[in-house]
């Protein structure tokens, strides 16, 4: 088995601080090597250190051997010549990594022109084949802004690998994709590994399982355990690995939170008939009927850009529908239909201590301030957090604070727009569980949006799919 890439004691520092602890690994031909861990700290730096794209204050030390050459000792221009042809990197944000003014096909074809010196027509043909291979032939003439998240990721895959590099580095390749799109991308990556080698960074246990091969589990720049992927996932040694696996929606208990039995059937909190919405010339949905019972937990699944958020805004009356009607239960105050945002800071005015925002709500609705402490405790929040502005509180805590503020108003319906997609998996599970529990305890209906149908299947009473 030939080793294509050997990394010896590679670490990353910035201003005397070590951000990535020394790490060694071998990547053999045909191998899939996956690094599993929370989003953020350390993992992405490894990719950039290997490529040689670390932004200025960051420096790498250690050896990166490609065959016999140590990349760390090469000039920058020599390393740049390896890009595409020896080392390819799949970007984390495919949408932002594609030129917004260039049609999809050209973004792949130009690589064949520039790197392989093909004539424009021939390059277009080669690129068309590649796009057909990933099911994008119909999107060849579209601009990136007109592609869905899954399509953009597949296009980025074609573009990144067009120059023919055997080694592919993939940084969170399935971020924001729903299960079926995620499986498609995992398949593409596995196929590529057979002709070269693959190094993937992911927080998604399921992706790690599908890719197989060797698995490294990391947290905050430290290596916790490594070995055969299936073996580790079947019998994890480290507590963190166990927590990570348990946080994967597939391993959630079903149901996540037991339903309260015997809820008497009564008037629905919201009813929608024949909803239709068009966005950017695309029909998102049509003839959609929805009836939400009190205390019901309803999931909405779908790919990014399929109109999940718009549907929620439509139901809450924040967006006019192209057709159809939404009726709320009559005689209920407007502020009992509320929303939780995907981006937790979005719920709070910036630059003001959170306590003041909570006081504002308590005063406006003449609520008893004594209601707040037990609610915070229920959501496992320290009251001291309220002294800080929203920007200085972690995403998981902020999302729970947003839930607490909503629950103060005793809502009938909460629309939660991917409330945990920006959180790491362990926090995501905790927040989802707390959200569903709190809704159940108060008999509040919950509309839970997610790209992860597995999570919805376990957290919700029923779920629908868009797109």
């Amino acid at each position: 088995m030939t080793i294509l890439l050997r990394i010896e004691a590679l670490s990353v520092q910035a201003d005397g601080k070590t951000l990535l602890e020394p790490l060694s690994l071998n990547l053999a031909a045909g191998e899939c090597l996956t690094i599993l861990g929370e989003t953020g700290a350390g993992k992405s730096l490894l990719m950039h250190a290997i490529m040689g794209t670390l932004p200025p204050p960051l420096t790498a030390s250690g050896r990166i051997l490609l065959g016999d050459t140590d990349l760390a000792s090469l000039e920058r221009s020599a390393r740049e010549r390896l890009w595409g042809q020896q080392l390819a990197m799949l970007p984390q944000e495919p949408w932002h990594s594609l030129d917004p003014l260039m049609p999809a096909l050209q973004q792949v074809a130009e690589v064949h022109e520039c790197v392989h010196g093909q004539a424009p027509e021939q390059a277009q043909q080669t690129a068309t084949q590649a796009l057909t291979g990933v099911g994008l032939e119909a999107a060849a003439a579209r601009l990136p802004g007109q592609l869905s998240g899954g399509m953009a990721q597949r296009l980025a895959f074609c573009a990144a690998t067009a120059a023919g590099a055997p080694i592919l580095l993939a940084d969170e390749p399935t971020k924001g994709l729903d299960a079926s799109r995620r499986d498609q991308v995992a398949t593409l990556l596995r196929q590529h590994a057979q002709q070269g080698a693959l190094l993937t960074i992911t927080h998604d246990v399921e992706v790690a399982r599908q890719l197989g091969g060797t698995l490294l589990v990391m947290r905050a720049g430290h290596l916790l355990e490594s070995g055969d992927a299936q073996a580790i996932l079947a019998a994890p040694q480290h507590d963190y690995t166990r927590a990570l696996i348990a946080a994967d929606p597939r391993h959630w208990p079903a149901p996540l939170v037991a339903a309260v039995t015997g809820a008497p059937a009564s008037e629905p909190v919201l009813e929608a008939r024949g909803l239709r919405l068009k966005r950017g010339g695309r029909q998102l949905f049509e003839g959609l009927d929805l009836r939400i019972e009190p205390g019901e937990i309803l999931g909405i699944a779908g790919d990014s850009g399929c109109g999940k958020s718009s549907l929620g805004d439509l139901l809450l009356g924040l967006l006019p529908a192209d057709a159809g009607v939404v009726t709320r239960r009559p005689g209920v105050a407007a502020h009992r239909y509320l929303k939780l945002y995907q981006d937790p800071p979005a719920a709070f005015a910036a630059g003001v201590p959170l306590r003041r925002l909570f006081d504002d709500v308590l005063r406006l609705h003449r609520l008893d301030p004594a209601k707040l402490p037990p609610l915070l405790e229920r959501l496992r929040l320290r009251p001291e957090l309220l002294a800080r502005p929203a920007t200085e509180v972690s995403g998981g805590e902020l999302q729970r604070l947003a839930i607490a503020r909503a629950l103060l108003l005793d809502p009938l319906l909460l629309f939660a727009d991917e409330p945990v997609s920006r959180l790491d998996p362990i926090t995501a599970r905790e927040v989802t569980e707390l959200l569903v529990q709190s809704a159940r305890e108060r008999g509040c209906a919950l509309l839970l949006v997610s790209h992860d149908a597995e999570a919805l299947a376990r957290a919700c009473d029923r779920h629908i799919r868009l797109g």
Partner: protein
Amino acid sequence: MLQLILRRLLQAAFVTWSVGTLSFVLMRLLPGDMEFRIAAGRYGYDHVDLAAAEAVRAELGLDRPGWQIYLQWLGDLLRFNLGDSLVSGLPVSHEIAHLLGHTLLLAGAAMLIALLIAAPVGVWAALRAGGWFDRLSLLVSALLRAQPVFVIGLGLLLVFALEWRMLPVAGFDGPRYLILPALTLALAMAAVSSRVVRHSAAEVLRSAYFNFARVKGLSLRQALQRHGARNAALPVVVFLGIQLASVIEGVVMIESLFSWPGVGHGLAHAVFNRDVPMIQGAAMALGLLFVALNLLVDLACHLIDPRQRSAH
């Protein structure tokens, strides 16, 4: 596309209406009777007497209420009947046509020179962002921007025309006369637009898509050509549209400074002499030039950005 043109046509209508109305008010505010001034405009001050004024009054119906005269005034405007200059007695439209050519020459030359300075300076500063060239160009730009454009002109005039006698001082009699006014205007424009180019180019160089183009295997030159130029040009062209107003303002000041026989000089002169038909004609010419240049910028944006084309 059609929408763009319609929007600018509407703007042209605004220009005509607002200039016409202001000029009408101006005419009514002038001391003395309107018919005397119009008669003076027609026959010269020496030949104006009560009879001539009476004839004008009867012919133009100046006894009518103000709003009727106002409507007729606007009607004349729409037929490009701008009247005669109160100073020279010549038809305003002829004079403006003569002046407009010079103004177009000056503005065109200035914009071309500004582009030739701003584009390379801005791109070079962006490629070495934070380096000595970037900081030097920022300093020069800040110093230039802290002067009204005519002070830059005064400085160039002192050095190149009066001290070194390399170039003519003022007027227009051959291409050498174009150099100083065009350069002055260009420096003032480039001081701002070089920074816009720099920011836009730096933005593109930092962008995820530019880095991805490199990682795909494109060389720096290829990535700049294919992904840099167009993406960076878009905000610059949009900014050019905003800068156009200051180009026209610069034309007024520079033409006055260098006695350049253009519309801006004509306007300042006419305001000084209270030559209302000429004020109206010159202001309208500058306003319509502004609209036309804006339309060109709109069309350029439309050509560069495929997203706009597919949106319509």
